[in-house]
């Protein structure tokens, strides 16, 4: 098991810069999720850790040793990819044995067999062992792929969107299984995803990436409730956080659109300062005596909750309410917010004024 540190990693591919000075500390045994859009540099970061890409600058430290120049085989990591992760032409058993048969490993045939059986049992794929991989379903393939990672008992598991190609139900099942696997093995996991639900539900720590930079690292709670800037604020949570431009006047937020005046607690911005107010949809309150007026633009029923889109002064504001609430499109509505939940961002830089 190992902790990993990236120190000032930069990487260019021709004219495109993939990573710009990324620093990450991943603790031993941590489930670390890299979250970001396509092209944010998550996969490149993972490949740098795996030893498949050499960084232009910076160092990769594994267990305190400088591993920048180690090749992939020397790093003792395992990689699970979204697709093409199994060797074609081989059976499931052949795939699981493959890493154990490399020259860097010294396993007897009995040991290989035992490890394969154990991995197959863990992932409930014993009955598939003699099947060709071409004849597996997507979910089975990913299980085998994870199996191939665990047979070797590597120091670090690297996963590049392993669940993204699966259908929703299977994704939920495997998400739970992966989490359990992490718990049982106690190994370090680095998990790349663009899916914030995966990130929030699985990660011990989340690193939010944008345009080749690591924007914020924190626990899911920290990322959710104390986002460093508006980018992070909007990258987690469904629907995303509402951002409303306005001005602070003492203990009152004056929203530009519609001129609504809403109370705030302990403002972290200065009196009279232009502020971008952030409020999560679940902290928007719908009540007959609420101070702001709007109109229901859209209602999405999700079973347990309803997501309302409220139009107020030309802005769309999301609110989550109980599914019991009787409300329809075009109904007039009064809304407010929980004053203690409001976040204050700088409208120019997007930085969270409460954290600086």
């Amino acid at each position, binding site marked *: 098991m190992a902790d990993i540190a990236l120190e000032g990693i930069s990487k260019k591919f021709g004219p495109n810069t993939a990573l710009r000075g990324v620093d990450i500390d991943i603790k031993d045994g941590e489930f670390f999720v890299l979250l970001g859009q396509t092209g944010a540099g998550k996969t490149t970061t993972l490949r740098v850790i*795996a*030893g*498949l890409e050499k960084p232009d600058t910076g160092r990769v430290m594994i267990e305190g040793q400088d591993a920048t120049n180690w*090749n*992939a*085989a020397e*790093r003792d*990591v*395992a*990689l699970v*990819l979204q*697709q*093409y*992760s199994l*060797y*074609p*032409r081989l059976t499931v058993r052949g795939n699981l044995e*493959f*890493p154990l048969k*490399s*020259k*860097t*490993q010294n396993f007897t045939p009995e040991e290989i067999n035992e490890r394969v059986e154990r991995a197959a049992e863990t992932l409930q794929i014993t009955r598939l062992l003699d099947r060709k991989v*071409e004849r597996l379903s997507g979910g089975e393939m990913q299980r085998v792929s994870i199996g*191939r990672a665990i047979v*070797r008992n590597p120091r670090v598991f*690297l996963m590049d969107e392993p669940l993204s190609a699966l259908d929703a139900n299977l994704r939920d099942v495997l998400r739970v299984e992966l989490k359990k696997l992490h718990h049982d093995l106690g190994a370090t996991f680095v998990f790349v995803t663009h899916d914030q639900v995966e990130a929030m539900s699985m990660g011990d720590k989340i690193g939010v990436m944008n345009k080749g930079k690591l924007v914020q690292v924190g626990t899911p709670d920290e990322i959710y409730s104390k986002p460093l800037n508006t980018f992070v604020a909007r990258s987690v949570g469904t629907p995303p956080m509402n951002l409303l431009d306005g001005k602070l006047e003492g203990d009152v937020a004056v929203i530009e659109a519609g001129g609504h005046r809403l109370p705030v607690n302990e403002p972290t911005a200065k009196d009279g300062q232009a502020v971008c107010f952030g409020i999560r949809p679940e902290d928007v309150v719908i009540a007959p005596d609420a101070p702001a007026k709007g109109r229901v633009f859209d209602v999405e029923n999700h079973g347990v909750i309803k997501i309302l889109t409220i139009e107020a002064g030309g802005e769309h504001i999301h609110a989550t309410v109980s599914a019991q609430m009787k409300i329809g499109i075009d109904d007039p509505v009064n809304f407010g917010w929980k004053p203690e939940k409001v976040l204050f961002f700088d409208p120019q830089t997007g930085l969270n004024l409460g954290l600086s």
Partner: protein
Amino acid sequence: MAGVRTPRETWTNRTAIFAVFVALVIMLTPIYWIAATAFKPRNLATTIPPTVAFTPEVSPFVKLFTKRSQLREQPTQEEYDAAPWWEKMVFDGGEKVVRNRKTGEVRSSGYGDRFKNSLIVSIISTLVAVSMGTLTAYGFSRFKVKGEDDWLFFILSTRMLPPVVVAIPMFLMYRVVGLNDTHMGLIILYTAFNLSFAVWIMKGFIDEIPKEYEEAALVDGYTRMQAFFKVVLPEALTGMAATAVLCFITAWNEYAFALIMTNRNAQTAPPYIPSQVGSGLPDWTVIAAGTLLFLIPVAIFTFLLRNHLLRGMSFGAIRK
């Protein structure tokens, strides 16, 4: 309803079958002609209209492999009776088999040696061209090569002029380095000739193999070379088979260079077979027999690799 053909489909189907039939007739007629001639008696080989019904005989093949000379006088009855069956055939054709004066051994025509030369040169040059081509293509496909497009174009440009144009300079160069009339000389020539082709075809195939496969192997503790052999090569086999067939056919059929560069030791079959036309009256049955045998290796090779070839030609190496 599924499975029921509409009249229109049936009509299309029949047209297709007819078109295939016509194409087959056009393509197979020359082969039939060669095969038929190879078993005809000499006097029926060039009749007009062509003789269709005849008693097949193997004398052309006997003549193909033996050195013969015109009979000045008929053999005595004893000589004729003492001769084995195949020698009688040569006597019947008005020729006699040339034997070594001292040992009495039958002297061979040299066709067997030419055939062997063809096999040696074609097989080795194909193996070398395909393996070098695959490695080169892998390099171009997986690594950043400075000026990659220019290099690839340069490689292809070696095929842009008719090979005969360089035949004389090549001949002079080969004479200086002593590669004239050697197997090695022809092998180098045919390898160089086929290499550009092999690189280009294999590049297409290897580009289609997801690099994730090798990367998984690299992470699993294999070296780049092991990953290449264990993961890439099995996937590339289809393409290599297709490339090999095409390279083999090119080398096997090559005529111009073989004619200029070789005469005795390393001469291949293509320049030899028509050379039989020149000595005395052309014996078309012998030429047909030589040609027929010459067709067999390519046919076998293509047949063995037919499954790969079919998939290879459609360029769908990997199921995505």
